[in-house]
């Protein structure tokens, strides 16, 4: 049985390896800065899935997410000469991705197009799905689709700043300090926003979760 934890294949810097990973990224960045444009592809391959996931969960639209992910990488590529390595490349790239997405969503305003990503059934929260299937006595496939729709809908109901912290912490697993750095706020603000956002989500998703 595939559990949620084992389903995660994308790279997220662990606390103990963050330093060495940061050094590795910095070495690649320096190669790009020295004119080795091809080295940037290593950074794309390393972070594209994470960046896409963040943007997708912010927009709930796979086409927009794909386009914005590319835009974020292009912006990073164009600005890489100014990256001095004070923050980690990971944080810097996330900041670009979040800013690009927030800017896009503000322009898009109230027009909302939903285009969901495929569910990897092998990797999906099979345990959770089974639990919900047993409880609701519904068909698994239908329940997965329903759950996907409800989750995306609930996230879209949140304000941008609350959605951002929920996506980064609860879905992507980033720490409060990292989120504070990416969003340019304090850890206290991140915690406060997270608390409020979770309250909102609990009320939107009360039919599916334990109270």
């Amino acid at each position: 049985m595939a559990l949620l934890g084992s389903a995660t294949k994308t790279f997220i810097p662990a606390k103990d390896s963050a330093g060495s990973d940061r050094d590795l990224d910095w070495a690649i960045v320096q190669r790009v800065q020295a004119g080795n444009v091809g080295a940037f592809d290593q950074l794309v391959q390393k972070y594209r899935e994470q960046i896409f996931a963040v943007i997708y969960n912010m927009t709930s639209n796979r086409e927009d997410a794909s386009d914005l992910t590319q835009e974020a990488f292009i912006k990073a590529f164009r600005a890489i000469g100014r990256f001095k390595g004070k923050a980690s490349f990971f944080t810097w790239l996330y900041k670009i991705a979040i800013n690009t997405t927030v800017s896009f969503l503000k322009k898009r305003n109230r027009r909302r197009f939903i285009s969901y990503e495929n569910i990897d059934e092998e990797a999906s929260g099979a345990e959770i799905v089974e639990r919900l299937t047993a409880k609701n006595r519904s068909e698994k496939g239908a329940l997965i689709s329903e759950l996907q729709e409800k989750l995306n809908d609930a996230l879209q109901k949140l304000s941008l700043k609350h959605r951002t912290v929920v996506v980064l912490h609860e879905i992507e697993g980033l720490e409060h300090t990292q989120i504070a750095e990416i969003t340019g706020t304090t850890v206290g603000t991140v915690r406060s926003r997270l608390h409020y956002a979770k309250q909102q989500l609990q009320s939107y998703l009360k039919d599916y979760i334990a109270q």
Partner: protein
Amino acid sequence: MAETTKNSSRQPSLEELLRFKKAEKPTEAFWGRFDDELHQRMMQTLVKKDHWLVQIARGLTGRIAQTTALAGAVALIALMVIRPAVTDSGHASESAVAQVEAPADQADAQTEVAEPRFSNADYGIDVVSVSDLKSRAGVSHEFEMDRIQVARYDLESYSVDRAAAGVPAIASAGTSLAF
């Protein structure tokens, strides 16, 4: 076993439910297209011109500034060179006219002194001043003699040339000889 049964019977928490979102993943085919598109866009970025505002901003600090500086330097040099020349010629004209209009009783002296000045002066002024001098002082002969004397030097050398060529030399070519 009892633990598993207990877990499977309970409702998931919000955190567990949100992690379900991780299951929404693109396929490998999607990443293939993504990479192709990104590479294309990056190539365009490398060769694409900047926005016109950026170009202007760059121009102001680059070529336009250089061109402006060069043009400014040329204009400054031109002002420094041309303006004194204009001022000098103005002064020269004034002085020539002033000297030409000198008293008529000093005509002999004036013709010798005025002639080189005429070369610097305007041709129009030259003609007027010469006729002026003639009419005022009646020095046409003196003046013509000077001209003939110059011609005589030429005539001597001409005579030598002709003598060398076997033509009878005009040894004592007078000033009245027609040439």
